[in-house]
């Protein structure tokens, strides 16, 4: 490595893989962990305390559905005692009476609530959970009443991309400070369902115009963050801000990972918290060092002026599409595989007639052999 190793700023804690919803784009791995493999309260608290020592300033409490952990209040309180900023990422379904208030009391800094659709029918169908939209509205109201700030998160794909203006209205009507329009990233379950989720180019262009106009119009009223879709891009995103650069994530069983999909890279071995300390894993783990910085890069990244802007993009996307985790992210126009991204968009357009029921809904213990047919 060419530069001194910096401490991590952010951490995504996937407290559980359990979830009442079954979104077909879920970023969790296809092989979901059952409850008996989850770290216990003490271990999470211990991990959080090491994370704070290491320099982590923000923890995103996620899942699955993190509120299914009965000790969530305790975990928030533990982080808050160390001054760590806590962001709860929830689907907002089935949260028991009084708990949101308890989260706020424990020191929760911010709540991010996902909506699968802006219309009840869309939300219920995408999450495969009848009545979930209504419950989410109620969660938003309770969060506001508890004094919490709110981000509405809208994962966007072919089946709800036309609802973007309605998402904006919905977030405004719920009093959200922030709306995240996040085009689905094709990893995890989203990759398995890619051909059913990929929007077409015209819809993506319309969406970009709508969002840009709303961002301008709503300055000082609501912040809109826009996660653009990779398959329509010229340059890749700096995945996680760069591999093992300023953030990492922890799976429910304590496996420490550079990103969501890192486990799809078969050449890497990941370590578990408990076997080694967080500091040791962050500094020494071969998997963390594999793609850290710029030393690992080949051309065209190696001599590219953007190499410290996007860090060569997403390793998992390189693996999924190019078949080589050390290749340039195919989202980049300089990648020899860039045209394959466009080809995949066009291919999915042709298979547009498939019905919604063809979704592979996310499910624990689903008999899924891990191989997928992108054309279905």
């Amino acid at each position, binding site marked *: 490595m060419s530069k001194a190793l910096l401490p991590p700023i952010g951490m995504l804690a996937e407290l559980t893989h359990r979830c009442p919803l079954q979104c077909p784009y879920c970023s969790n791995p296809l092989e979901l962990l059952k409850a008996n493999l989850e770290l216990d309260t003490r271990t999470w608290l211990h991990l959080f305390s090491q994370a704070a020592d290491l*320099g982590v*300033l923000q923890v995103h409490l996620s899942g699955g559905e993190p509120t299914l952990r009965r000790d969530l209040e305790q975990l928030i309180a533990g982080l808050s005692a160390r001054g760590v900023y806590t962001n709860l990422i929830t689907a907002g379904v089935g949260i028991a009476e009084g708990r949101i208030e308890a989260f706020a009391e424990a020191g929760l800094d911010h709540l991010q609530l996902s909506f699968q659709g802006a219309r009840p029918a869309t939300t219920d169908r995408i999450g495969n959970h009848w009545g979930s939209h209504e419950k989410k509205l109620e969660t938003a109201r309770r969060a506001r009443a508890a004094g919490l*700030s709110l981000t509405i998160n809208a994962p966007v794909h072919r089946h709800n991309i036309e609802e973007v203006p309605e998402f*904006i209205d919905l977030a*405004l*009507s719920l009093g959200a*400070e922030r709306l995240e329009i996040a085009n689905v990233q094709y990893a995890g379950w989203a990759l398995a369902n890619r051909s059913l989720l990929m929007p077409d180019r015209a819809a993506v262009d319309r969406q970009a115009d709508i969002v840009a106009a709303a961002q301008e*119009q*709503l300055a000082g009223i*609501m912040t809109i963050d826009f996660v653009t879709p990779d398959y329509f891009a010229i340059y890749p995103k700096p995945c996680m801000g760069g591999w093992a650069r300023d953030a990492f994530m922890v799976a429910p069983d304590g496996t420490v990972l550079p990103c969501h999909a890192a486990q799809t890279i078969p050449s890497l071995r990941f370590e578990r918290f408990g076997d080694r300390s967080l500091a040791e894993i962050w500094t020494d783990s071969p998997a963390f060092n594999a793609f850290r910085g710029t030393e690992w890069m080949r051309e065209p990244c190696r001599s590219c002026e953007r190499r410290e802007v996007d860090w060569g993009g997403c390793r998992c996307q390189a693996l999924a599409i190019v078949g080589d985790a050390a290749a340039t992210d195919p989202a980049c126009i300089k990648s020899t595989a860039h045209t394959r991204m466009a080809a995949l968009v066009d291919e999915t357009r042709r298979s547009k007639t498939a019905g919604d029921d063809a979704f592979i809904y996310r499910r624990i213990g689903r008999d899924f052999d891990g191989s997928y047919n992108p054309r279905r």
Partner: protein
Amino acid sequence: MTAPRERAIVSLRSAPSLPRHVRIQYDPVRLAFAVLAPEKVFWPNDISLDILRRCDGQSTVERIIADLAADYDADPQDVADDVIAFLQEWSDKLLVKL
């Protein structure tokens, strides 16, 4: 599009505060003050930090300007321009409440 809320504009009488989702935190690892917000961490310079620290919901913008001009021994008009521009920008990003 319905816009039930309105964009706030800084005036000398506004009493800015930090909203619930924005927090100033000393970082003992990097030996610096960080401003923590959803999905964002800012590393403000000394002057920005001095402005944000005074956003207590009590002090008016006028007062903040006078205090800073005294502390930095600077021309109040210059300070006023900087403070107002800074607060408007942060308010537009929903990071300061006016």
